[in-house]
């Protein structure tokens, strides 16, 4: 049974911002198909009345006072940038 087509895999790769060669595409298509076929067993589970889990513990949002405090220094934030321009990150032309 085919769950996912080569065309769909191409579309997902685009959404995920990943390039694949033709050879890689055909390999990953069959692997994804195997995996999706396996995980499909969850459709058999009776989940009527079961809410989706959002968190395993009963916790609530954490708030703090809206006060400025020390954060990462500008130089530190830029330290690992592959390319920078002044105080900014430099990227190729935005298409």
């Amino acid at each position: 049974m085919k769950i996912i087509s080569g065309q769909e895999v191409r579309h997902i790769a685009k959404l995920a911002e990943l390039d694949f060669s033709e050879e890689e595409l055909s390999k990953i298509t069959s692997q994804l198909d195997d995996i999706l076929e396996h995980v499909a067993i969850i459709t058999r589970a009776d989940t009527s009345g079961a809410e989706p889990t959002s968190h395993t513990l009963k916790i609530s949002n954490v708030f703090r006072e809206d006060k400025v405090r020390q954060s990462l220094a500008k130089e530190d934030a830029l330290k690992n940038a592959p390319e920078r321009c002044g105080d900014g990150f430099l990227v190729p032309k935005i298409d």
Partner: protein
Amino acid sequence: MRLNFLPAYELKNMLQKREISSEDIASQCLKATERLQGKLNAYIYFDKEHMLSQARAADAYLKEICGSFNKKDGKYFDFTGIPVAVKDNICTKDIKTTCASKILSDYVPVYDATVIQRLKSQKYVLSGKLNMDEFAMGSSNENSAFGPVKNPWDTERVPGGSSGGPAAAVAAGLVPCSLGSDTGGSIRQPASLCGVVGLKPTYGLVSRYGLVAFASSLDQIGPITRNVTDSANLLSAICGWDEYDSTSINGGLHDYCQFLYDNIKGLKIGVPQELMSGGVDAAIKESVNGVLKLAESMGAVVEMTSLPSFEYALSVYYIIAPSEASSNLSRFDGVRYGYRNRDATSLRSMYRSTRAEGFGPEVKRRIMIGTYCLSSGYYDAYYEKAQRVRTLIINDFKKAFGKYDVLISPSSPTTAFKIGEKSDDPLSMYMSDICTIPVNLAGLPAISIPSGLSENNLPIGVQIIADTLREDLIFKTAYSLEKAINFNKLPVHLYEQ
């Protein structure tokens, strides 16, 4: 005497009595590492001079407080002067943190993870950063951009994963203890395959601040050690509320050593039949049954039980974890940090070629699964359905813990397998985590301790699971069983070759 094979708690006592120095310990760990790194590939980074200078600083501190020792002043910490190795997905300021990925191969964090800050405040010695499966995705440590780690018991076999480096380094005596991370079994499964003790604490007990995120609702940092006492001590050192992690628990305990006592009389143990089924090797079932008999002889009450929703756990995990990963790993785009393809002439093509070249095959596979499961038209059928089935798994655990104090199972369905045996078959690799995954889905604490050796001399691990924040029961049970099992074996033959 080989200091690198002594438990951390014994080293601490010897340091306090000034019988040895931290530099002595560091030198012996370094010697072992220099000898075995080529064979095991456990470390991605270690720096002799840096380690020795930290040890000397710890010695100077110990000398300074010598004489003023007072049990209550808390100056003699459990890890003062003790080497700890750290999995390479935990941020260490000014020291490369690669996640065993090409995309982060030059990344130097500008801050320390909370667990590192806590160990630094005890004046620990960082021995280095440990190899792992790329971004903690894998069960064999073969998915590392820096090459696979070898199992110290048999170097043709995998150490398990994703914390293969942390488990192998501790088992081989390169270091007394290490920190790993566990998303679906990544501490317990390698601990089991390497014959050491691996603890995955309750979700939220240890801060994830500075742990490079894989699947945020499942990830948890925990200790890998050669004994249960060191596990309790290391957990005590790193746990506790952290304002930088919004999922961190406020109100957990801080001292887990108080639960290290040898008494499980009356303890109610449940054995999930789903984890003792056909998929588990006969020798492993036999070993776990042996442990259960021991427990009975010590006064515990053992009963088979059923958690029927476990049937779905692997599938639920391989939807939820990749979904979260696909979102978390979108940050690696060649803009703010990490590798960048410098030939690309436009932004989108730079993103795509950077990610295509920077990530390994398993990471890409999981990003693809996750993106698919979250994409329009499939979200309800996969991600939302998986989160509902996750609730069924949590409910099964709740029911079980209404009846039992702890659950006991194998930690892994097999002993260490051969390098390359499963690397081309993702699904059979995923099966390596069938015993450990349900625990992460429910956010529970669990430990793997060695229960014996197989016929071909490979370690077997037994898993002890408890309810949320019941690490007290984990330690009590693990400590008692550790004494009774008396495993006490190390792959010392490595040093003879």
